[in-house]
């Protein structure tokens, strides 16, 4: 079942008449049989969107289509959806079996058919041995699976999951998200899944919808969103460790990090006045030859920008020397985008190593570089870093990609 949101808005009006736009003009098409993640920080309107699709919230404007049917005014029970709540909302006084059969009893399904469906669902989510237990006798992961079984029992056309993994511990979270993916594949049900955890969203969804303050930022396949963030927010929201952001300057297709430009009035031979900008750099690195997208004029004036580099976007080489050696960086090196720096801290997770390095252009600010553990870099080592161009993004002051 394809879900289409057209100009969907949800405004909340507070007592003092201030209007909060929880969801603003949202247009989205969820292809049939796909798993879509609504991703964003808390308060970005992703759960509100989900509840509007469920029918528990009424949109202020806009329409919701299931297939070709406008369901905007259809009550939740008639939409054919299954909803899994963040804290599962399993009825604590009913056994697992009764919980799963609860929606079926509402439909006055015959007893033996209910039993059959319950068993089938239990098998699907792998909770057969626990059918006669109470929810509080199950682990968080098992409760989550019961909640999914209950949502799927009445064979909905759409499955909605509201932060389904946030109440689980790290290991269970990994396990359960694979489980959700498997169940979704097996049933082929169109699934919308709300999360604030980018890793979760990236790992199991077909497409990610990144939201911020009620507005969709980017919709694409997980890898595409990661590789081509449309703005600084998306770039910063996806990826752990977070992308490194440097403030810099763009001038004549060159990106500078650190340093200043000095204005100088020059008069040419025809007595025409113009302003020249001269870079005054120190140990800063700057990166050259950034392609400006076509149609966009390279600024004559140096423009303040943000340069974002993924932690894995650095090549690092260990240099000879020790903690006390002085770091000498030549101007040529800086021009080529090569940084020499001292490693402050090292975080090891086995497969690779995170170097924490003080930003040479901004004291007390640190950035992270992920390198292979084989390099055997330790705290105090001096390293030479160069930047992989495809892991670097340049955003303007408003945070939009240049």
């Amino acid at each position, binding site marked *: 079942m394809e879900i289409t949101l057209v100009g969907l808005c949800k405004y909340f009006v507070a007592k003092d008449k201030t209007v909060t736009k929880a969801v603003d003009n949202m247009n989205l098409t969820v292809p049939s049989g796909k798993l879509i993640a609504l991703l964003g920080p808390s308060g970005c309107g992703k759960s509100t969107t989900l509840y509007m699709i*469920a*029918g*528990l919230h009424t949109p202020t404007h806009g329409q919701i289509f299931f297939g070709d049917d406008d369901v905007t005014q259809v009550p*939740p*029970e*008639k939409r054919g*959806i*299954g*909803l899994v*709540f*963040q*804290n599962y*909302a399993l*009825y*604590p*006084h*009913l056994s697992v079996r009764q919980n799963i059969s*609860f*929606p079926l009893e*509402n*439909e006055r399904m015959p007893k033996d058919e209910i039993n059959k469906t319950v068993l089938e669902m239990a098998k699907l989510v792998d909770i057969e041995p626990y059918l006669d237990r109470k929810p509080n006798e199950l682990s968080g992961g098992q409760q989550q699976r019961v909640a999914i079984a*209950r949502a799927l029992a*009445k064979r909905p056309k759409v499955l909605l999951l509201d932060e389904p993994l946030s109440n689980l511990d790290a290991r269970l979270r990994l396990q359960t998200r694979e489980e959700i993916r498997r169940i979704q594949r097996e049933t082929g049900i169109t699934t919308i899944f709300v999360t604030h955890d980018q890793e979760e969203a990236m790992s199991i969804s077909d497409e990610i919808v990144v939201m911020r303050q009620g507005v969709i930022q980017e919709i694409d396949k997980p890898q595409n969103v990661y590789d081509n963030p449309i703005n600084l927010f998306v770039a910063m929201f996806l990826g752990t460790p977070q992308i490194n952001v440097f403030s810099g300057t763009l001038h004549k297709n060159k990106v500078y990090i650190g340093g200043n430009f000095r204005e100088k009035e020059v008069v040419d031979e025809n007595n025409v006045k113009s302003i020249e900008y001269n870079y005054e750099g120190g140990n800063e690195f700057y990166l050259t030859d950034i392609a400006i997208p076509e149609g966009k004029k390279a600024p004559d004036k140096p423009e303040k920008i943000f340069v974002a580099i993924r932690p894995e976007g650095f090549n690092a080489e260990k240099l000879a020397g020790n903690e006390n050696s002085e770091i000498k960086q030549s101007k040529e090196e800086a021009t080529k985008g090569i940084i020499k720096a001292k490693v402050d801290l090292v975080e090891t997770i086995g497969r690779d190593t995170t170097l924490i390095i003080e930003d040479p252009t901004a004291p007390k600010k640190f950035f992270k570089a992920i390198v292979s553990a084989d390099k055997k870099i330790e705290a105090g080592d001096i390293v030479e870093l160069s930047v992989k161009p495809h892991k670097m993004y340049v955003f303007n002051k408003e945070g939009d990609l240049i």
Partner: protein
Amino acid sequence: MLEGKNNWKAWLYLAPALILLGIFSFYPIINSFIIAFIRDYHPVSEVFRQNVENNQALGLSFFTFKNFITVFKNANFEYAIKNTLLIALVSVPISVILALVISVLLISIKKLRGFFQTLFFLPYVTSAMAVAMAFTVLFANNGTASAGISQGPINSVIDSIGLKNGLTNMLDWMNYQESGKESWQAYICVDSSGEIDEDKLSDKYQTYVNLQTLLDLPIEYGDMYAYQTYLADQTDVYNSYRYHFRELGYIDWVGAQATWGSAILVVLTYSIWASLAFKILVFTGGLTSIDKQYYDAAKIDGTSKWRTFWRITVPMMSPLIVYILITSLIGAFKVYTSIVGLFGSGMGPAGSAGLMQTFVGLVYQYLNEGNELIHVGAAAAVILFTIILIITALTNALTKKRVHY
């Protein structure tokens, strides 16, 4: 830390509470159990001690069950048992159900919720005596219909919605069940001076026939005049049934002509209404603490309101409901103030004192009769304690399977 040598500190801090509880709770409780089994106890003149000393040779001869027998033989014991049990076992379940329904409705409205919550809570902060006085005004009967005197609000309402005759019939039926007094007597017509109104008798006869049929009793055809003559001769009998001879008029709920049926209805109404406040307070508190997601989940699954109430709200509230049920039952067994408020210390309508007697009323009655009967009062209290214990244990056992903690 609390173990070992520092233990005395804990006892020191507990001492004020323990001493007060000991003097004013534990000692009186234990003492009343002892007194209940002592013959001719007299706390001031120490007759008891003399008895003990005199009877030393006889061993435990001061021990007796006589006090309990005195209680059982009390003229109003039957009423005390009947009224107390009825008030506890009828008014408590009704008020629990009503409170639950009102709470659910209160929670579901947004506008005026605070107003209604305050309204329902008012009885809780109002003196029981004041409420009872208001009730006597509400249920006032200012004479017979023909007298044309204005009635209390309840009687006026009953009349205006045409329930007067029906209710009178019902009350007479209740009275018949309660006292065995032949109901049809109510339909012999007397005027305000007590004379039998022969003109009205014939069509009342039909009512008599209808009622006897309804009650499955033999109809004594043609016997009306004979019976009436018989009653007129038997002045004593006539007088004892006197107040039943009245016109099919307004119901005298709490006045001199009130019957057991009408009086108990007023007491039940009072008990239910007065006890609603606290229950609603507790229930609305409990309801707001139920996670809204359960209701969202039920809504998505297309659960009807009725099923949501029975399968979700009630089970989730069950610990609170049982708590309220048991504390209310215990409270209802101690009913006394409301009866005094409605009927005065006579514990019944004027002219039939003791008709509304309750168990605690019985205890007070013995205590009021001076020091001579304190041990009988204690025995009555022990009986009440036993009844409450049994009922509470029964409630616990019956609800155990249905409570989900």
